[in-house]
């Protein structure tokens, strides 16, 4: 039935277009169009080009006005500030260039719209001009490259040290686990070949012959002490995944057969973040949407949605299969005291396999 409907709509559209062209043709009394733009076409299309410039500006302003609040959420890590800074500088440059070049492009398209009898200016080369617009991008980009590389090296240089907390992020279709190195500060060796040991209790495949592994702690929820450097070691047991933590401006792929790393220092706790005015208003907005949706759900006999409370998130950001869209883990940033209390309540690997 649907196929018939779709086809008939398509046929109707085709007929409609055909009729419209017929009308166009008939309205041009006897003068058969050559289908090449004439002065009239140049005129209205030129004016539309100018209107289009206004449209581009309009959609830019509209997007910022309506959606500006979703852009780059507040950073919650120490390098987040540098990241955001570089981002806004790049953005400012992009905006400036975009505004100017689009204006020139569309204004010229409007201003120099063709007229019969007019002749274009024969102007094919100007070395000075070309020099200018080669040199300027060179300098701007050199600046951006240098600043970018400086920040990049800063963020990506991971140095093992006694202060830092080493945490392993372990990815599998379709969930995350985390492993803490325990009292010795060293993660025990691990390989997927050990996953079947201890009747499946060895959740991340710790090598039971490595003494460093016994005090390791495997959990399903990530707790991080505020103000301390965290060195993440990423592993995956099946396909590629990517550990994406947008609030911390952090992301690294998890590659089977390989250990990748990323480090950052969280500098805002979950509690503090929940009280941030931007987050408060965002949560309010989201809950308003959820209440509205819940009403519709309840009306159709479904269960209402839970109210939303802010939490940091770890998302999977590399296509990994059917439930890729729901591969997440909660991250809780808390005071060192709270963290200590929480970690001491968790079972070590030795306790789990007993």
């Amino acid at each position, binding site marked *: 039935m*649907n196929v018939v409907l779709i086809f008939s709509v*398509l046929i109707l559209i085709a007929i409609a*277009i*055909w009729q419209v*062209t017929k009308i166009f043709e008939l309205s041009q009394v006897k003068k058969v169009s*050559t*289908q*090449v*733009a004439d002065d009239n*076409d*140049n005129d209205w299309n030129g004016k539309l080009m100018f209107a289009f410039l206004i449209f*581009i500006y309009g959609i830019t302003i509209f997007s910022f006005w309506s959606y500006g609040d*979703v*852009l780059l959420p507040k950073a919650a890590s120490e390098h987040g500030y540098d990241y955001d800074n*570089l*981002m806004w500088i*790049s953005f400012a*440059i992009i905006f400036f260039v*975009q505004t100017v*070049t689009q204006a*020139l*492009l*569309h204004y*010229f*398209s409007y201003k*120099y719209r*063709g007229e019969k009898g007019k*002749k*274009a200016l*024969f*102007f*094919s080369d100007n070395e000075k001009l*070309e020099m200018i617009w*080669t040199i300027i*991008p060179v300098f701007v*980009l050199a600046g*951006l490259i240098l600043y*970018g590389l400086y920040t990049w090296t800063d963020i*990506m*240089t991971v140095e093992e040290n006694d202060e830092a907390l080493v945490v392993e992020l372990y990815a599998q279709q379709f969930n995350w686990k985390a492993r803490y190195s325990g009292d010795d500060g060293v993660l025990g060796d691990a*390989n*997927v*070949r050990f996953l079947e040991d201890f009747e499946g209790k060895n959740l991340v495949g710790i090598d039971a012959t490595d003494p460093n592994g016994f005090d390791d702690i495997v959990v399903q929820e990530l707790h991080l002490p505020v103000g301390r450097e965290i060195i993440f070691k990423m592993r995956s047991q099946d*396909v*590629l995944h990517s550990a994406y933590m947008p609030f911390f401006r952090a992301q*690294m792929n998890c*590659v*089977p*057969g*390989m250990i990748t790393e990323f480090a950052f220092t969280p500098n805002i706790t979950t509690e503090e973040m929940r009280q941030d005015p931007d987050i408060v208003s*965002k949560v309010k*907005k*989201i809950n308003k949407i*959820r209440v509205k949706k819940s009403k519709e759900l309840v009306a159709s006999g479904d269960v209402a*949605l839970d109210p939303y409370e802010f939490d940091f998130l770890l*998302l999977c950001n590399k*296509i*990994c299969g*059917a439930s*890729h869209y729901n591969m997440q883990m909660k991250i809780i940033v808390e005071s060192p005291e709270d963290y200590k209390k929480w970690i001491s309540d968790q079972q070590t690997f030795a306790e789990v396999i007993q």
Partner: protein
Amino acid sequence: MSTAEAHIEEDHGHHHKETFVTKYVFSQDHKMISKQYLITGLFMGIIGIAMSLLFRLQLAWPEQPFGVFEVLLGKWAPDGVMDPNVYLALVTIHGTIMVFFVLTAGLSGTFSNLLIPLQIGARDMASGLLNMISFWMFFVSSVIMVMSLFVEAGPAAAGWTIYPPLSALPQAQPGSGTGMTLWLVSMAIFIASSLLGSLNYIVTVINLRTKGMSMTRLPLTIWAFFVTAIIGVVSFPVLLSAALLLIMDRSFGTSFFLSDIFIQGEVLHYQGGSPVLYEHLFWFLGHPEVYIVLLPALGITSEIIATHARKPIFGYRAMVASILAIAFLSTIVWGHHMFISGMNPFLGSVFTFTTLLIAIPSAVKAFNYITTLWKGNLQLNPAMLFSIGLVSTFITGGLTGIILGDSTLDINVHDTYFVVAHFHLVMGISALYGLFAGVYHWFPKMFGRMMNKNLGYIHFWVTAVCAYGVFFPMHFIGMAGLPRRYYTNTAFPYFDDLADINVLITVFALVAGAAQIVFLYNFIHSMFYGKETVQNPWRSNTLEWTAPIEHFHGNWEGEIPHVHRWAYDYSKPGYKEDFAPQHIPLQKGEEELQH
């Protein structure tokens, strides 16, 4: 050259003997082959765009039943609700079809074939036979790709980049079974087709130029096609090797890309391979591929903007230099797709450097286009509108590349909708506009008839508004942190406030899709009932318009015209007309521009 020409002259003498099969099916005439490429490309384009509309419906109204899903997806949309695996399959095949089948074969295949012989003054490609084989291999690969949609477990669904292990292990997702095998076979044939085509283009441009057609007098279209073919020959074989190694891993138990895997409760035997190796091989083609798609579109735009602005293209030499610079740089920037793949961060620094360098030739091109418009006498035909539209989206999309090419900034926007917005504008929409511009401009050359301009205007304006409507807001949801390739974002209440934007994007996408029906109608209708064209409808300088309207194998009756000047003598002082075609000798005392 002389033997080839003599040979073709001979063929030409016998052209009445052509049967239906040799003329329309297994044709060796470049003009027929170009039409075959175009029509196959458009057909694939319909499938690719239709798929994008289906998954846009799912994204705007997640997990809602749609009758159209039930009809088109059948068992993969139980009760009309799209299955997550099918969503991934649609995304994957949409990407593959649009990038390779529409914008590589459909764009480059069509216009390289049509224009290289006609614009350089040759009777045909260097090898008509290879050219024919190239098209039919492309056709076979298209058929296999379409066939893969109908296999039991569904088509490939690992994303168009098909990263292993997801693509290598049937246990990882249903699409990695027969669907993926067909994908790989189809792509292997496609690559062979593309290589045959590219070699032919390169040889033809180097050897078969008519008298007087020096490299510095080549139209920019030909420069673009020529350099594109070189990039293709350099980089496509690497993808072929990646595909072959992946086939070995999948079917013969090798471990090139796989190591230490535990899946579905089972440890697999693979040891010592690395998925990162695959990423390197893939992107060694994957990035140049962007320019394989884009350069022909820019070449077409250069030609169309100059012709319809009735003005020489500004900075011909700089345009050629920037094509060459882009081509060279494009082969050494692939790592910017892999900043966070786990490769050494130092490599990230190197690739940031080379990547941002590519902005310089791109900026030169954009500024030169704008200057070409300045003080022109713009004939705003549909082809011209699409070319101006291309420059606009090329700028908008290209600028965000400065953010993505910067390894630091990439950390947080990598694989989000920000990337989707960026590459759709800069290569998807731009190249599509190039394709449309080319079709509107060279339709009279291909079919001897004009396309309807008013329908062309409707097509352009609706598409232009919708393209921005779709992709501009997408930057915002990307900056908010929403990853791409998510079946729905409802699993994250944090993203609930993005629902409005998703609906807006989908509405624009649906309208844009409808506008393409106007184009298709115009295309098919004009093919049969369009106004008959005059020989040189756009009053253009290039050689193709000196060939008769009626097509025959060999292009010109009698001698091939000789060339006396570059292709851009528009509105040259001293001429009554505002154009002076390439085959017109210089007037007494007239100097040829030193370019």
